[in-house]
């Protein structure tokens, strides 16, 4: 499974990592939906760190398509909120 962290790199993860990744992402989403800004940055950093530490970086000269693309590491709480209401990082 190839995961891209937007603005950084692509990582190659084992398919078995998907469940944990999903958990971490759900935790972030729960905070955003609950309007809990406290802890958001940490939760998001944990998710990205998991990808970076578990994954193997895809070489710059390898051409791969990602199955998962995560927003950039400097994603703000407000941006994360907009992400779910349609006005996302990439305009529609």
């Amino acid at each position: 499974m190839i995961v891209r962290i937007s603005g950084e790199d692509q990582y190659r993860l084992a398919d078995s990592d998907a469940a944990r990744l999903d958990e971490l992402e759900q935790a972030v989403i729960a905070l955003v939906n609950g309007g809990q800004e406290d802890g958001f940055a940490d939760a998001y950093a944990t998710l990205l760190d998991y990808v970076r530490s578990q994954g193997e970086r895809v070489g710059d000269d390898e051409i791969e398509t990602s199955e998962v693309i995560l927003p950039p590491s400097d994603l703000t709480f407000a941006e994360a909120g907009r992400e779910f209401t349609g006005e996302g990082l990439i305009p529609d």
Partner: protein
Amino acid sequence: MAGLTGRMSTVVKAKVSKLLDRAEDPAETLDYSYQKQVEQLQNVKKGIADVVTAKKRLQMQETTLKQSVVKLDTQARQALSSGQEDLARTALERKNVAQTELQGLDTQVSELEEQQQKLTDSEQKLRAKIESFRTKKEVIKAQYSAAEAQVKISEAATGVGEQMADVGLAMQRAVDKTENMKARADAVSELEAAGTFDDITALGSGEDDIDRQLKSLSSQSAVDDDLAKMRAEIGAGDGAPAPAGEIAAPSGEPAPAEAAPQAPPAEGGQS
């Protein structure tokens, strides 16, 4: 997709795919795809140049403001030594505004610095991918039948396209940030144009519009503190007032401060 049900990643991915549809038609010929990739790389370079330009503008303003801070401080001292407290206060108010702007600029310059670094990294990655694509397209041309080649082309073009979309995203964030900063740079320019940081000795007596505005902009308590500190440093500001005309040059002789060979009553001259 492999297990992830999270909305966050899927939303982002859907949007990237949409960008890809716009940016890249995988059915296009290999050479044309490559040509387009190289064009987009040029756009990224242009984007980086824009960030650098914005940064330079802010840095130039920083330099000017720093000079103003030094100048206004010196003039406040001179005014205070000659017993012209009102003039000293005005100079300190202006200095206060200049310092506040300076802090804001400082933060923004480092933020732009960071954006520039990110874009440069992205550009290098995109360049590496495009280079791989160039090699790969020759292999595909030589080794595969038309039908097989189509699939391979599609895969490769989508992969490069994703990288391009990612750079596009980084560019967009950089542009947004640069736009915000332009607003601040413009604000500083306006203050400059209004004469906010001008030579205080060129000022006539009484307060003008600028001074009234400055009062609202600057922190009066900070100005009071500065004034008290300066008074203590100079040593009893209520001492013998310097001969009138030394600083303010009341009507008649608007002493050109920069060049004025007047002996500064307190300490070192400006420059």
